[in-house]
């Protein structure tokens, strides 16, 4: 094999030397033979003649030698390549469109795949990642990858199936200071055995060990931090730095070692900069490890040797609820027990993955469709070119070229185009990835940047070859099957209007794929529209809220309630504000304020959770946010006692526990020991997110000595920005130097819609691209149809066809292809819609209006593409078309 390649290489790169040597070799033979003959008595002249005669046809044997070395193949290829380059230069427009659309198709596929690869397929660079499991807590509010730290100790002390059990909690709100350099840092508090469990070795220094678990002043830094902030200092071990959390507490740590390069922590996509022993958290929060309600610690495990996964799962399922029970009862939790389950963990924990893998999969589908459309588009253009070159093909066939030779030559042209497209695409993939990341995340994530790796490269090569064959093969076969006799006898411009059904089918398929893209774009656009216009049960457009940071302003704790009261008073005196109050705005609540509710006279169904969410509000909150009261009254100042005695419930809670009875005046037990009298009922609001339906909510009066976010609504006709300024100036007057974060509620909601906006924008862009490509293909095909029918059209016009008749004739052809495309595309769009159902909001994937609009858009694009060729046909001058023979 190798020797063949070497011999081929010699034939390609040192061809003239070979030719010369072979001539010499053959000449040597002839001379020797002649000499031998002369020696045996044949006269000199005769000897040479005899030698040639015995040898046979020298040229033909020389050709035989070339063929024996595969040179014929090389010669044909290089001839084809030269020819292909020449024909590309002759029609640079076509070559440009081909290379550009392929580069876009291939580049986008590579870019999205490389992101998917990083996010979903890449495992952590640790020892035996396939044996790592994440421990996940399943509670009534869903599954949690983070949990309170005490649960980790409970697991570690009671389960012997794990070896080892380890964990970490990551925080992004730290600021790191080394000498005079400051920068934000992602800090992980890790269990002592974290690095051992992952099987990592230090770069310099040492890593944390089980003995360090209770240490509070040492740290391991990431390789990246070592290289940047510490400038790769070889004596980094022993140096110290300080970490400040949210501008609150600050503590210094001493570096004991550096994590290995390539290890970015166990949250891929979000590199950890500093690793601290878990007990170091006490320096920021003395109770940090005892909180039973704060979900912050990730737990991972390997299984003890010979313990199979199902055994471990079964043990967790059986024993964990029992272990957890005393604490649950203490919390007043009467709901379903919680469970622990093991999930695959070799890929680490990635919130980015959780958030974006759905969107990325959709994106992968979109770019795959774009790739297919680009290929179909080129196939259509090639059909047209093939028909245009039928004469040339006929002449070459007539001159003795074989059909296989013609086919090979076509394919050389196509593969050359796809190769150029593929290389450009591979180069462009880096920028396309950067562009996607720019849309995807606010922060720079070097880990997600485009890194060429073997898998990505293989995909690129596969796509390039696939493209060449996909768009090239059908037109090539068709073009090489011309009938030279018929073709050469017929005058130009007189072909019949009929073209092969393959060309029509490819065009229709392309239109169908475009329809799928357009329908997807329409569905995502409507989703975004719905998310933007859904009210959520409160006035989201004009409400403004402000969150003061008293700590940063070093404002005395005891003066806060007074200051807040003054802020509210100032706001309610302002002529621009209808009402101002305090309370967390909906959607922005933290989800941890849920409790169990007991309603006398209500018998829960077995296994029912009775979880309700509680939030504290000041009087006027509902009016400010535009949440209607259905029954009873709002809170009043006298309700703001240190221990709430009254509550307002939402409609959902009222309907569930009191059915049609009036709940006002009834009592409920909130949590284990808080009896509350219901004084009012309000309409439901969405609170978790705009997508999720409202939950049962209990509103409690905010005690007079506590404070919360300030909410305010401007009068009708007053811009929210005026209201924002009012809040700022109220704080400036009442609590000088206290920084306040003020914005419209809508701005906060929009931040949560980033993913939906991204999907909508990208799918719209790809839909547009699909339509443009399809129109180009349709335009090309129709233009060619018109020019090949000039004679027929000329006759029609000459015998009295009006311009409209001709236009109708051309457009009929255009519409029949478009119609076929729509017919093929609709079922595909419906099938594809089902796959993206989970990303949609308040629009069905089979929504008839959306599908109808998409079909109409496609039909309009088809008509537009057909209009110019039709116009040109109608303006044909019969006297000229008939004379030009």
């Amino acid at each position, binding site marked *: 094999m190798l020797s063949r390649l070497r*011999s081929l290489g010699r034939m390609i790169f040192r061809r003239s030397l070979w030719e010369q*040597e072979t001539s010499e070799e053959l000449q040597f033979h002839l001379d*020797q033979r002649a000499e031998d003959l002369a020696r045996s008595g044949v006269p000199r002249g005769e000897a040479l003649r005899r030698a040639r005669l015995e040898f*046979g046809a*020298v040229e033909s*044997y*020389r050709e035989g030698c070339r063929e024996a070395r595969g040179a014929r193949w090389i010669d044909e290829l290089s001839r084809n390549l030269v020819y292909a380059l020449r024909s590309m230069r002759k029609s640079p427009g076509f070559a440009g469109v081909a290379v550009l659309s392929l580069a876009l198709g291939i580049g986008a596929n590579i870019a999205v795949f490389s992101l998917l690869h990083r996010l979903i397929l890449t495992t952590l660079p640790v020892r035996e990642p396939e044996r790592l499991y994440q421990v996940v807590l399943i509670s009534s509010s869903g599954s949690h990858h983070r949990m309170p730290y005490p649960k980790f100790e409970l697991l570690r002390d009671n389960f012997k199936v794990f070896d080892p059990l380890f964990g970490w909690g990551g925080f992004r709100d730290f600021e790191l200071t080394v000498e005079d350099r400051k920068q934000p840092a992602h800090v992980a508090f890790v269990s002592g055995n974290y690095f051992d469990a992952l099987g990592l070795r230090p770069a310099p220094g040492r890593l944390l060990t089980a003995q360090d678990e209770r240490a509070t002043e040492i740290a391991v830094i990431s390789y990246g931090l070592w290289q940047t902030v510490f400038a790769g200092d070889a004596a980094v071990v022993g140096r110290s730095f300080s970490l400040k959390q949210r501008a609150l507490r600050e503590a210094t740590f001493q570096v004991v070692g550096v994590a290995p390069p390539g290890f970015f922590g166990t949250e891929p996509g979000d590199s950890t900069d500093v690793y601290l022993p878990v007990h170091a958290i006490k320096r920021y929060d003395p109770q940090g490890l005892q909180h039973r309600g704060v979900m912050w610690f990730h737990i991972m495990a390997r299984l003890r040797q010979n313990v199979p996964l199902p055994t471990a799962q079964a043990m967790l399922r059986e024993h964990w609820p029992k272990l957890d029970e005393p604490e649950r009862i203490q919390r007043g939790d009467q709901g379903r027990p919680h469970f622990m389950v093991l999930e695959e963990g070799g890929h680490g924990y990635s919130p980015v993955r959780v958030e974006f893998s759905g969107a990325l999969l959709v994106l992968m589908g979109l770019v795959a469709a774009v790739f297919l459309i680009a290929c179909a588009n080129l196939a259509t253009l090639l059909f047209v070119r093939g028909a245009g070159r039928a004469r040339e093909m006929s002449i070459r066939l007539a001159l003795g070229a074989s059909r296989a030779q013609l086919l090979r030559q076509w394919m050389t042209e196509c593969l050359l185009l796809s190769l150029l497209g593929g290389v450009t695409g591979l180069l462009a993939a880096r920028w396309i990835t950067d562009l996607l990341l720019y849309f995807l995340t606010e922060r720079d994530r070097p880990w997600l940047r485009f890194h060429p790796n073997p898998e990505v490269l293989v995909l690129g090569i596969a796509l390039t070859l696939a493209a060449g064959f996909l768009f090239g093969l059908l037109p090539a076969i068709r073009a090489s099957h011309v009938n030279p006799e018929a073709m050469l006898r017929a005058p130009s411009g007189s072909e019949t209007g009929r073209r092969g059904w393959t060309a029509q089918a490819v065009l229709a398929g392309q239109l169908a794929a475009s329809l799928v893209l357009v329908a997807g774009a329409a569905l995502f656009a409507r989703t975004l529209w719905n998310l933007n216009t859904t009210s959520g049960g409160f006035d989201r457009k004009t409400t403004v809220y402000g969150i003061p940071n008293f700590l940063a302003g070093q404002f005395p704790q005891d003066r806060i309630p007074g200051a807040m009261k003054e802020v509210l008073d100032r706001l309610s005196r302002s002529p621009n504000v209808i009402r101002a109050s305090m309370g967390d705005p909906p959607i922005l609540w933290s989800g941890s304020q849920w409790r169990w509710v007991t309603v006398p006279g209500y018998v829960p169904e077995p296994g029912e959770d009775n979880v309700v969410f509680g939030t504290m509000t000041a009087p006027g909150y509902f009016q400010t946010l535009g949440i209607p009261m259905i029954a009873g009254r709002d809170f009043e100042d006298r309700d703001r006692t240190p221990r709430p005695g009254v509550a307002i419930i939402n409609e959902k809670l009222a309907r569930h526990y009191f059915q049609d009875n009036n709940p006002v005046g009834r009592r409920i037990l909130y949590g284990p020991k808080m009896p509350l009298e219901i004084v009012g009922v309000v309409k439901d609001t969405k609170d978790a997110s705009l997508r999720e339906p409202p939950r049962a909510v209990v509103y409690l009066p905010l005690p007079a000595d506590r404070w919360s976010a300030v909410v305010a609504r401007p009068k009708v006709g007053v811009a929210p920005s005026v209201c924002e300024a009012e809040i700022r100036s109220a704080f400036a007057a009442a609590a000088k130097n206290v920084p306040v974060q003020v914005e419209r509620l809508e701005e906060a909601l929009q931040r949560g819609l980033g993913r939906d906006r991204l999907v909508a924008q990208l799918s719209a862009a790809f839909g547009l691209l699909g339509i443009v490509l399809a129109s180009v293909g349709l335009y090309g095909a129709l233009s060619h149809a018109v020019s090949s029918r000039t004679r027929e059209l000329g006759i029609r016009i000459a015998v009295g066809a009006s311009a409209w008749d001709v236009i109708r004739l051309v457009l009929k052809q255009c519409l029949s292809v478009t119609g076929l495309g729509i017919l093929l595309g609709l079922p595909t769009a419906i099938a594809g819609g089902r796959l993206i159902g989970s990303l949609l909001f308040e629009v069905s994937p089979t929504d008839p209006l959306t599908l109808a609009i998409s079909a109409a858009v496609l039909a309009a694009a088809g008509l537009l593409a057909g209009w110019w060729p039709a116009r040109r046909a109608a303006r044909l001058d019969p006297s000229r078309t008939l004379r030009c023979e």
Partner: protein
Amino acid sequence: MGKQAELLPGTLDLLILKTVSLNPQHGYGVLLRIGQITGGALSIEQGALYPALHRLEHQGLLGCEWGTSENNRRAKYYRLTAAGRKRLGEEVEGWNRLVAAMRAALKTRPEEV
């Protein structure tokens, strides 16, 4: 020359490999040697030798270098490579089997059937 037999397809390669295996030869030498060892009983057109030589070289069965012939001219000498030696062994064995089978078949008499 006496009575000449036509060459069976594929046997030319075998003959070349065998000839070159004795000692490195240039093309003309291979021709002479084939004539010599077969007693001139086989006829081939001389030129046909060269595509065969180039094919075997392409397949890596023959190696070549330029040397000087007996009368001091530059000539291309072919020699057997390791792969060629292996192939020669296989071909010889195959040939022997074929010959044995043919001989047995041709010796068959009516009463043996």
